[in-house]
Every structure is written in structure tokens, then in C-alpha cells.
């Protein structure tokens, strides 16, 4: 199926990246990045603005050139984009559906060019919305556009779904229902989802894997379970704060006169002696990891 070397790739690895680099003039959007993504995972690719998230996704989708080696479903996205797109779906932010197209035209087009699209499924998803076949995209609200795009994409039996800030600019009702439908009606063990978003709290509970990217480098690549084992948050009374600082926390913040310390790989028993232990939220972990990004 592929011309690439598959010897080191297990059957369940759907993306294999080695030493990816991409430069825009002076800035390095990707700096020698390597990672593997397994099937059946939901990966959150999280990073500050300009960290290289979108560049990484574009490389995976065959929308940009790059240096290094990248295999997506065994294909090189640079040269096999059309074939790849039979297995990969993609939602960028809400603005990318052409504004002139009518809902029924969009459905007819996708069903005509996509061998794995089910018109029935798509129409079934749309019956739960206020979207009518004769409407043009420009008549729809942002939330409805994303519902339409999601209906088109969920009706495709693809192996990989890439979401780049899919819920940007939507209200909380649309954001919630977006991720709920993804989980309930789409995701299964044969599918993989990569999502980038700034609304980390909203995807945190659906992720199985976490990737932090900063200045074009991957600074964290772990499963959510590993994250839970490795990082711990302790709420410490002021009298023990100096003891906590001695253990070199990643970060420290104050709430209600207590200090909250975030530790990476510290001994749980010693931490427990300092105060109450918590699993840190992805957002707090992100802030601690990205400290000084914009400084």
C-alpha cells in the first residue's frame, strides 16, 4: 500500500513522525519533532499561539511542505493527499465551509466525491438541528455551520479526524454538544481524533493522550494516565510552604491563604505529608509548563 518503510511501524500506529521541521522565514514552526500516534486514541495537541500546532496538523493533512519523515496511515501526505483524504477528515475552525454553498449541494458534493460518506447518516444528524437543505451557509449562524460541518464529517467512516480549534467562537451550548456528539455518535476504537483547542477544560475529560507543544518542540507527550501518575498538585498551609518549595515544584499559586504547588515526578508519600493531594487539571499543567512563553 505504501512506498514508505513500515518496518518500525506497528499495525496500530497511524501517524509516525520523525524529525519534522518547518521554517517560516526566521521562525521555526516545527523544530525536529518526532512522535507516534496510535489508533483509537483522542489526542489533545495543546500549545500557545504560534507554537506550531496548526503547522503540525497541516503537515499531517498534506497542506504544507516540511522536512523530515512523516507517515499517516502509511502514506506520505505530501504526495498522497487525495488518497489520504479518503481516510482522514478535517475540520478547521468554523469559517471554512464555502459561504455560497447550499446545504443540499454540500451533501451532494461530499457524497459524490467521497467513497466512505453516508448521505443517510448525514441527513439523520441534521434532523436534530434547525438546518434545512435549501439554506446557504452564509445564512447559518456560526454554531449551525459547525453543526453542518460536523454532520458532513461524522457521516464519513474515516480512520483519523483532525480538529483544529473546531469550536472557536461558539457559545457554550454548541461547544458542549459538539464534543458530546463526537463521543456518542462517532468515536470508537477504530478511529483516532487529534484536537487542538484553547478551551482545554472542555476537552480534558475526553482526551486519552496529551501533547504539549512549545516553540516548535513537543515538551510533553503522555497518556492521561501517565499524566496522572507523574504530576501531582498539593494544597499546603503557609507553615509548610517552605518545605514544599524545597522539593522544587513546577509552579506555585495562592488560593484562600493556602499555596498550591504542582510537582513533576515527586515522591507521593512526601507530598501527602505536606497537604491534600490532587490530580492537576490540564489547564494548570499547561500554564506551569508554558511559563515564560510570551515573556
Amino acid at each position, binding site marked *: 500500500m505504501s512506498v514508505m518503510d513500515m518496518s518500525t511501524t506497528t499495525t496500530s500506529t497511524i501517524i509516525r513522525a520523525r524529525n519534522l521541521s518547518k521554517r517560516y522565514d526566521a521562525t521555526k514552526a516545527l523544530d525536529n519533532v518526532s512522535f507516534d500516534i496510535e489508533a483509537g486514541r483522542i489526542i489533545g495537541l495543546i500549545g500557545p499561539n504560534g507554537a506550531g500546532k496548526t503547522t503540525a496538523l497541516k503537515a499531517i493533512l498534506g*497542506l*504544507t511542505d516540511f522536512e523530515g519523515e512523516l507517515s499517516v496511515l502509511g502514506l506520505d501526505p505530501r504526495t498522497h493527499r*487525495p*488518497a489520504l*483524504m479518503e481516510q482522514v477528515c478535517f475540520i*478547521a475552525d468554523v469559517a471554512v465551509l464555502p459561504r*455560497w*454553498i447550499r446545504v443540499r449541494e454540500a451533501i451532494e458534493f461530499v457524497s459524490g*466525491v467521497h*467513497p466512505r460518506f453516508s448521505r443517510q447518516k448525514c441527513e439523520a444528524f441534521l434532523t436534530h438541528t434547525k438546518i434545512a437543505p435549501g439554506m446557504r451557509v452564509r445564512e447559518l449562524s456560526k454554531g449551525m455551520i459547525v453543526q453542518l460541518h460536523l454532520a458532513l464529517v461524522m457521516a464519513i467512516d474515516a480512520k483519523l479526524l483532525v480538529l483544529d480549534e473546531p469550536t472557536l467562537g461558539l457559545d457554550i451550548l454548541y461547544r458542549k454538544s459538539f464534543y458530546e456528539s463526537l463521543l456518542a455518535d462517532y468515536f470508537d476504537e477504530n478511529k483516532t481524533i487529534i484536537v487542538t483547542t484553547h478551551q482545554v477544560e472542555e476537552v480534558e475529560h475526553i482526551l486519552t493522550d496529551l501533547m504539549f507543544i512549545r516553540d516548535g518542540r513537543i515538551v510533553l507527550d503522555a497518556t492521561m494516565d501517565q499524566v496522572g501518575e507523574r504530576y501531582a498538585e498539593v494544597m499546603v498551609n503557609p507553615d509548610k510552604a517552605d518545605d514544599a518549595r524545597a522539593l522544587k515544584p513546577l509552579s506555585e499559586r495562592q488560593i484562600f491563604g493556602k499555596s498550591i504547588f504542582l510537582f513533576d515526578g515527586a515522591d507521593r508519600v512526601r507530598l501527602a505529608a505536606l497537604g491534600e493531594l490532587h490530580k492537576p487539571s490540564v489547564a494548570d499543567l499547561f500554564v506551569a509548563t508554558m511559563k515564560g512563553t510570551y515573556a
Partner: protein
Amino acid sequence: MNTLPLLLKREYWEHRGGFLWTPVWITGVILFLTVAGMITAEVLRSHAQVQVGFSLDSLRNDISAKDFAAAGNGLDMVQLVFSAIPCIGLFFVLFFYLLGALYDDRRDRSVLFWKSLPVSDTSTITSKALVAMLLAPLIAFAVSTLAYLVFLVLVSVWTAMHGLNVLPAIAASHPFGMFWRLLLTIPVDALWALPTIGWLMFWSAYVRSKPFLWAVMLPFAALFANWWFGVLGGPHISSDLRLAEILARLLLSVMPGSWMNGKFGVGSPKGWVNPDSEQVVGSFDPSHVYSVLATPDLWIGVVAGLALLGGAIWLRGRRIETNV
């Protein structure tokens, strides 16, 4: 999966206004003016009893077979005019269609949606070129043919009101012959238009903004600079190379029938001002029209156009968003 018909349909959906409604409006206006002229003639006649131009009633008596033949030739000319006038609209529609074909979707980022589907850049660009070469001209031709039929009905009804039977004149004209002759010019138009199609789509795929400026102003500036260097006695391309003609081929060849200049012996400027209908209609004889295929100008243009389209395909794979 054969996606080409659907890609053509997609272009039609997006540009229905230009491809369908522009010729409909243009021929509609011609028909409206026809009816308005008939009404004016009727009203003036009944008000003042003045003869406007000629009187149909007086014609009835002394009409001969020879007059019918002349009228038939006149109708052939009318049919030609009906298909030629929408071509002016078609030129502008195609020009701006091609200039936006690979740019508009990059500007509004919908290119990210199109690129998320299993359609190759080659198919996309082929479909857009085929739309400009064949689909849009065929739609315009179908509309103008229907409009001509409506015109015949209008004229028949009007003359019948004056007791004149126009059918012998229609019988003396050659609607089917003209239909085929005009239809057969479309493939020649398509081949002739390729350099412009390639040129406009190339810049459409290339620019980050203002495709019109690049596609139109750049060659003019180059032409001017060349002339200026020549005046200064500096290095320049000599005028033997017919630079202005090349420029016209790059920018104006999507005008249907623009290969019909005196050089090919198909009509001449003088002939168009004071047309001899028989000669004009005769110049649409396929053997005459297809003699253009024997000229190097056409084939050099085809090769240049295909090369530019190849460049557009290459660019389409690399220049995706306008802001990156």
C-alpha cells in the same frame, strides 16, 4: 470514483449567476427591445397614420421568392447576432471567473474544506479549465439559441397580425445549419482561449492578494518597460516579436471568436461594419473555421496554456492560504 461531473456541477452552483443568468439577462434585454420596437411601431402607426420605415401591409402584395431568400439570409444574421452578443458578457464572466478560480477560496479559507476531500489538485484545475472552455460557452449558446427561437415566435406573431406569413422566410433561412456552425466554433474558441485560461489561473493560484493587478498590470508594465528601454537604447526585446499580440493572447483570448481576424480570412473589420450577410454566414463554414487549427498561433497558444495550467496545479499544492 469519477468526480469530474460533480466538480463541474460545483462550479456551476457557485457561478450560476455568471454562467446562466448573465446570458439570460442579455438575451432577455434583446427580446425586450424587439417587443418594444414592435409596440412603438404599432402605436406610432395607429396614432399618426405615419409610415414608420416600411409598411408590412404594403409588403404583402409585392413580395417575391427572392425577397424571402434575402429575408432568410437576414434571419441567419439575426441568429448569429443572438449568439454573438451574449459572448461579450461571457468574456467578462470568464475573465473574472478565471481570475478568482484559485484565489477566492484561498482568501475566504474554504480551500481548507475543498482540500479535506479526496479530490486531487489536477482534477480541480482540470474541471475549472473545462468550465471556462466548454461548459460556460455551451450554456450561453443554449440560452441564445432558445432566445432566437422566442424571437422567431415573436416575429411570426407580429407579422401574422398584419396578415403576413413569415414562414417562407424562416424556411429560406438555415436555423439548423447555423446552429451546428455556431456550435462547432466552441471547440475552436476553447483551444484558442487556453493561453488566457492558463495565464489567469496561474496568477489566481500564485497571488496572496490582488490577482487582477498581477495578471493585468504586470504584463502591461513589462511591455512598457521594454518599450522604454528600447527608447533609451538599452537592452530590450525587439518589436519583431509582436509583444502586444502576445499580450492580447494572454489576456483577451477568452473572447469567443477572437481568432477571427483578417489574417485567417474569416471576415474582416470592413466586412463587419457593412456586413454582406451571405459572406459573413459563409465564413462560419466549419472548413473555414477549422482552418485555424492549421495555424501555429493556435498550437503555440495551446502549449503555452497547458504549461501555465501545469504551473497552476503545482502552485495549488503549495500556496494554500493567502496569509501564510
